[in-house]
């Protein structure tokens, strides 16, 4: 009897040997391929010239001084949140609670601005605001870390759940502080007195950029040259090895998550005290989740993260401009962004794995 042992057409093999040069070539090809597909779709669907669409994307991000600054400001906020998640991710602690940690930090800032307005000098208000938002973010990171360290609960679920608690708290306080009554909006806090507004350095966009630069450098050193960074890596590789070499795993988990949450708190502080001067349930705008992708794409390297967060923000700013200039629906720019991201994330597969087609020879070899 003939056994029909059908071999699959190909199989996938992991590879670790790709040179950096080759990897970047693949990424470049992916980007070009993405742009070509986008061009075809643009012309097919709208009849617009794809080159002018691309030019519009660039001008959306850098079309004027102000646009350039806003792009860098947005880039900085996303980068800070991505950096915040990184220490936890390197430990293989899946912190999906960035959104909530940012929100709660922002809520602490807003509370300080509203409750201490006119009661303390502005400098003191700002100091309390910075401390309270960093603390609030840290606590939001600490809670799931404690559960993980003590009862080994699933951190993905608990950090996600903490997001909803933060959102509901913000929703509750929005009703408490709303102005005018019943509007469901807080509006700009201390618009005329500017109490609790973080100081402008040069212009109102630069502060976030500066904070992002400082955090990137410090975190890079912390992760690559510090004892803590090493411990984080060991715990991430194998908890048992870590225990064997005498690392207190629980302590590392808690310490790292407090750091992660505290940095998210900084992002919340910047969003509320430096940029928007108000708090809403959507102020983090899903960046707590986007940051997960940014961090992954950068393979948890803080320097690479500058580029990956730039890519996301650049596409986002450009997408908005396409909608305005070509009077297309925002959904169209989302399609373009989606295609580009699909290719860029997809190419990472070909960098990490290779596809081996099963030829006859291979079959014989196996026999």
């Amino acid at each position, binding site marked *: 009897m003939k056994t029909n042992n059908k071999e699959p057409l190909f199989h996938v093999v992991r590879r670790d040997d790709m040179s950096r040069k080759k990897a970047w070539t693949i990424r470049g090809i992916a980007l070009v391929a993405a742009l070509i597909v986008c061009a075809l779709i643009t012309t097919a669907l709208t009849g617009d010239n794809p080159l002018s669409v691309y030019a519009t994307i660039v001008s959306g991000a850098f079309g*004027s*001084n*102000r646009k350039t600054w*806003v792009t860098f400001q947005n880039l900085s906020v996303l980068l800070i949140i991505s950096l915040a998640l990184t220490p936890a991710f390197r430990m293989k602690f899946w912190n999906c609670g960035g959104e909530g940690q940012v929100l709660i930090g922002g809520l602490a800032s807003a509370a300080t601005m509203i409750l201490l307005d006119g009661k303390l000098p502005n400098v003191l208000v700002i100091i309390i605001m910075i401390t309270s938002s960093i603390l609030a973010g840290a606590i939001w990171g600490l809670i799931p870390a404690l559960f993980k360290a003590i009862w080994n609960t699933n951190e993905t679920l608990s950090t996600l759940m903490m997001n909803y608690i933060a959102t509901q708290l913000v929703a509750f306080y929005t009703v408490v502080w709303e*102005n005018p009554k019943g509007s469901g909006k807080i509006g*700009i806090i201390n618009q005329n007195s500017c109490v609790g507004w973080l100081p402008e350095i040069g212009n109102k966009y630069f502060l976030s950029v500066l904070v992002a630069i400082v955090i990137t450098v410090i975190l890079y050193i912390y992760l690559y040259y510090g004892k803590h960074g090493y411990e984080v890596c060991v715990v991430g590789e194998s908890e048992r090895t870590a225990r064997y070499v005498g690392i207190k795993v629980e302590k590392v988990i808690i310490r790292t998550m407090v750091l992660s949450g505290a940095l998210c708190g900084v992002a919340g502080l910047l969003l509320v005290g430096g940029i928007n001067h108000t708090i809403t349930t959507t102020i983090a705008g899903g960046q707590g989740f986007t940051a997960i992708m940014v961090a992954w794409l950068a393979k948890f390297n803080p320097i690479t993260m500058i580029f990956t967060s730039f890519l996301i923000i650049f596409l986002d700013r450009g997408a908005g401009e396409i909608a305005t200039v070509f009077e297309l629906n925002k959904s169209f720019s989302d399609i373009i962004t989606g295609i580009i991201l699909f290719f860029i994330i997809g190419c990472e597969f070909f960098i990490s794995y290779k596809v081996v087609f099963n030829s006859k020879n291979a079959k014989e070899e196996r026999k």
Partner: protein
Amino acid sequence: MKKLTALLISVVMVVSLCACGNAAANTASDSNADAQASEGTTVKAGFICLHDENSTYDLNFINAAKEACDSMGIEYVIKTNIPEGQECADAAMELADEGCNFVFADSFGHEDYMIEAAKEYPEVQFAHATGTKAHTEGLENFHNAFASIYEGRYLAGIAAGMKLNEMIDAGEITADQAKIGYIGAYTYAEVISGYTSFFLGARSVCPSATMEVTFTGSWYDETAEKEGANTLIKNGCVLISQHADSMGAPTACETAGVPNVSYNGSTASVAPNTFIVSSRINWAPYFEYAIGCMQSGTAIATDWVGTIATGSVCLTEFGDTVAEGTADAVEAAKADIEAGKVHPFDITTFTVEGKQLDSYEADVDTDADYTPDHDVVVDGYFNESGEEFRSAPYFDVRIDGITLLDEQY
């Protein structure tokens, strides 16, 4: 590492090149805008919308903006999906950078950020729908606008009352069962003013009418609006109306076969068998007014209130299910309102805790403590959107006959 550095440097160079080139272009367009403003003739308009044309609320603005600008033959830019945060101030300032000398935002939460932009660009005129702060902010280039939509709601209420009467006459319900249901977004004055004038309109033709109101805590939440409508129908409401921007309530009404009075525009497309009529604000007259002011070099009013006479307050076409004689009754009431014979908030037509409302201190000047600051009862009626007060509604009185099911929002 070397490669990375090289890459970094090249990126920085490209970026700075872009920034330099555009900075030069930018200043050129700025001086251009100045020249235009000083002549007071050429206007380029910029519009900022919270969502895009998929929201009935924003669509209403987008259509009006296009209509007004096309008929006046001026250039315009529409920015959609601008959130109620610093993005709004940035968008407004970007529009000013691009040479727009009239910038308008459509959502309530945009106001504070428009004020920020107005402070930075004193030569550009900023206007904002539904806002409350222009009259206290003291900025010459920041303006609020709204319409006496409570009059439109009152007229829509008459159509609802006629429908209730028809149901009573046909024996489908008793007079005591003439209960209206209303889905509101927030317990905000604009919503309270809307449902109260709607109710008073209905009660002016159907004296036994009562109303129940529920709130969703969002201006756009299809599920919550649908659920709200279903709860009200279960509670025995025989006619539904709403102040929220999705198709949730009209769809629920169509499924349950309950008549619906809509807002922002006709919803006959999703509720062909239950749609009665919809009131809406037409913003084109305001845009034409404000842009006209700039063209002729006159100042735009700090608070502008569109009325039935300006064409700002309108009713859509009636649906198929409308009661007989409704069109005539509505026309008559409209004429009475225009002639000043009928005021929707006539204090003799409603009571608050059993008493007539002889005077009422409203929070007209917005502040964090909601301090009442103006007596708004004038000549025997509650003077909503009054000329000496502000354009946005401040009627937040809970009158007898209306039950609020929940007030947490």
